[in-house]
């Protein structure tokens, strides 16, 4: 490992640990949520350093964008200060943590050295399938996209259904979304104070959505894909809702459309699988989509599946945000 890599990795890991400690010490939960966003930024930098560019993309969009917004929305609905942890709770926790950490460190002796090229994961035959053979079978440079959407397509369908179910669960916990006319911000919302931020956000909106589309369709050649695009799309609308008011955001994307999109994704995804079965292949065998030219069949299949993922992820994230944000309305 090059010395630069090691030094940068150590610096980032040290900062990450410090940030985690700061989060655990902060009792003001608004502060903790903000530092959690910083934690997420650091994590994403480490992902970039460890060559996981797609993961870094997702972590940045999810950790800094969506989950910070969700935690803050919930804090606005509940108490934002934490009670002091009683001393008698700390000791058992420390005991458990020390025991578990000790067990992990003990077990880590069997792990291969960090970055070694002859560790079991690297020498397993599947590595060659993914990194070399995939270029002939599918021909898309981004291996992560290939594995995600094609080789492990069934697994990803499962993950998408988890996201779908989580969206449904949040809706059933919080009740249906408040109608847009109930979410009108009060008159003083339109203060001239906010002129700068409104103009800049209005200017940025189209670029955010364009960027999301770019990430979706460029995911074959660079970092990106359906999950990332969905989250970016959603964070664009979250920004819109935060700056221009929830009512206007809900007019742009009415709940009815949102629910249609939430269920459309898994349906399209599974539909592709059923289509390939009807065409004589196995479930999600994209080769069948273009019989004479399996490679372009794969391209088509991956594109459709990634779009389906993007739709559902974006719709679920928006539903969750609107659900929490309009909770304050329905509660009153």
């Amino acid at each position, binding site marked *: 490992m090059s010395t630069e890599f090691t030094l940068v990795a150590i610096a980032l890991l040290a900062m990450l640990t410090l940030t985690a400690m700061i989060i655990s010490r902060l009792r003001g939960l608004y502060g903790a949520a903000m530092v959690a966003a910083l934690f997420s930024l650091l994590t994403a930098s480490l992902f970039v350093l460890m060559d996981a560019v797609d993961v870094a993309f997702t972590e940045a969009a999810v950790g800094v964008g969506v989950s910070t917004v969700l935690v803050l929305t919930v804090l606005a609905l509940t108490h934002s200060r934490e009670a002091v942890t009683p001393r008698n709770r700390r000791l058992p926790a420390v005991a458990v943590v020390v025991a578990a950490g000790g067990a992990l460190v003990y077990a880590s002796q069997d792990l291969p050295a960090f970055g070694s090229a002859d560790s079991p994961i690297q020498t397993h035959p599947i590595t060659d399938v993914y990194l070399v053979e995939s270029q002939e079978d599918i021909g898309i440079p981004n291996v992560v996209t290939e594995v995600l959407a094609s080789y492990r397509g069934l697994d990803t369908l499962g993950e998408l259904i988890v996201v779908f179910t989580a969206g449904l669960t949040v809706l059933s916990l919080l009740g249906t979304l408040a109608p847009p006319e109930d979410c009108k*911000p009060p008159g003083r919302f339109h203060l001239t104070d906010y002129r700068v931020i409104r103009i800049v956000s209005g200017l940025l909106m189209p670029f955010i959505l364009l960027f999301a589309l770019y990430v979706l369709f460029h995911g074959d050649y660079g970092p990106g894909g359906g999950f990332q695009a969905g989250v970016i799309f959603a964070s664009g609308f979250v920004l819109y809702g935060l700056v221009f008011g929830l009512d206007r955001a809900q007019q742009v994307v009415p709940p009815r459309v949102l629910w249609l999109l939430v269920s459309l994704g898994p349906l399209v995804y599974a539909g592709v699988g059923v289509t390939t079965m009807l065409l004589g292949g196995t479930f999600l065998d994209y080769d069948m989509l273009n019989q004479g030219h399996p490679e372009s069949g794969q391209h088509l299949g991956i594109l459709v599946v990634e779009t389906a993922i993007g739709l559902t992820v974006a719709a679920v994230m928006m539903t969750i945000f609107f659900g929490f944000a309009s909770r304050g309305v329905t509660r009153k």
Partner: protein
Amino acid sequence: MILAVMVALLVAMGLVLARVYLGPGRYNRILAVNLFGTKTVLFVAVVGYVFGRPEFLDIAILYALVNFVATIAVLRLTHYDELVEQHHEEEV
């Protein structure tokens, strides 16, 4: 040269982290987190050059974007009552 920039960025990140820890109060932390975000954008851009794959700058664009969204979210949601009208106020 690029390495020196990277070191400068890491040192600056450390200093900002100290401000995050010291606070005090919400605004100092938002400010620090926001500035930390800008440094991460630069860090990611620079890492691409150091390790020889500068084409991954898309990630840095995304960082710049979410950093802005997060800052606006913090400002907005800490004044939640401005975002959603409180119905009972109207009736009183």
